[in-house]
């Protein structure tokens, strides 16, 4: 089973990317975490361009989402909202809206920020956007505030609470892959 990891941050030392790597280490062995690292290459969404063949970077993103059993997105928060590059990539992924690759896809949103709130507003807006796109948004809560104090020099989580929250979030996301269990 494949979980696609999408970091909303392009920064080399991104805490959100660290958070996703940590999630990969907490996954059961039958799951693999695959990173999509094409965020920088996605052009600004343009409906005129969208009318023709999709840009190669967009095709890569759509295929990565399509092939994944679930998606895990870690987002920073810019001006109380979703980073523009991440929103732009999701806007591309959401087309065509009726049949987009996120439809019924289990997705979990997590996030971290240097401030105290852990990107909670960006996460809330991201969940709203994903639900509108038709994704199956898992109810998870990982908001890592003061992120520079929660990781060690190797980029591993140094805070037990954060590690426990992340483990809970992963288990909630993976439960979404088992409809029978959820429905029971």
């Amino acid at each position: 089973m494949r979980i696609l990891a999408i970091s909303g941050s392009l920064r080399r030392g991104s805490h959100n990317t660290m958070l996703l790597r940590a999630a990969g280490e907490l996954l059961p062995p039958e799951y693999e975490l695959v990173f999509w690292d094409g965020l920088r290459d996605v052009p600004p969404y343009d409906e005129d361009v969208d009318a023709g063949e999709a840009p190669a970077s967009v095709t890569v993103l759509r295929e990565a989402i399509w092939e994944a059993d679930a998606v895990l997105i870690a987002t920073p928060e810019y001006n109380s909202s979703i980073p523009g590059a991440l929103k732009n990539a999701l806007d591309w992924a959401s087309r065509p809206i009726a049949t987009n690759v996120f439809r019924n896809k289990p997705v979990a949103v997590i996030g971290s920020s240097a401030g105290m709130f852990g990107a909670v507003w960006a996460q809330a807006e991201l969940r709203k956007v994903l639900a509108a796109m038709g994704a199956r948004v898992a109810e998870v809560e990982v908001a890592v505030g003061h992120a520079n104090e929660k990781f060690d020099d190797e980029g591993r989580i140094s805070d037990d609470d954060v590690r426990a929250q992340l483990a809970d979030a992963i288990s909630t996301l993976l439960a979404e892959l088992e409809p029978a269990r959820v429905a029971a």
Partner: protein
Amino acid sequence: MSTLIEQHTAVPAGTWQADTVHSSVGFEVGYLGISTFSGEFKGFEASLTDGELTGKAPVAGIEVKDENLYAHLQSPEFFDAERNPELSFSGTATGPGAFEGEITIKGVTKPATLAGTITGPVTDAYGNERYALRLETVIDRSEFGIEWNAPLPGGGFALSNNVKLKAELTLVKAA
């Protein structure tokens, strides 16, 4: 000369199937606080057997006038068709045009009372005996986990929580 249709006071005995070509099942929901949005459930089945009414409709059969809206209604945010592909009702007649039973939407089952009229019988052009059953009920969609909404700039929300479900069934006696 007018035709007088006998108004029955009780549902008929035996097994009666909905003639789905001449029947419809649909919904009406308040939109923007000023109007009504409506749609139909295609592909439904319904039958009445000795006062027991059962019906079901595939979520995939919801008919609205826009493909993106259709996709939104199928999504987890609305009916979640992937997990809950069917809506259903089953209940017992408690009077003329009245049924008490349970309705299941999005995997949630709640008690429901359907009220309306039963008319007939009449013999159709092919010699089949028929009844007409018109039923309505109002549900609170939020109780079934369908909670999507959008706030309006002047206050209030785009979509009412109360949804009227309507069935207009032409019943033909099973052979």
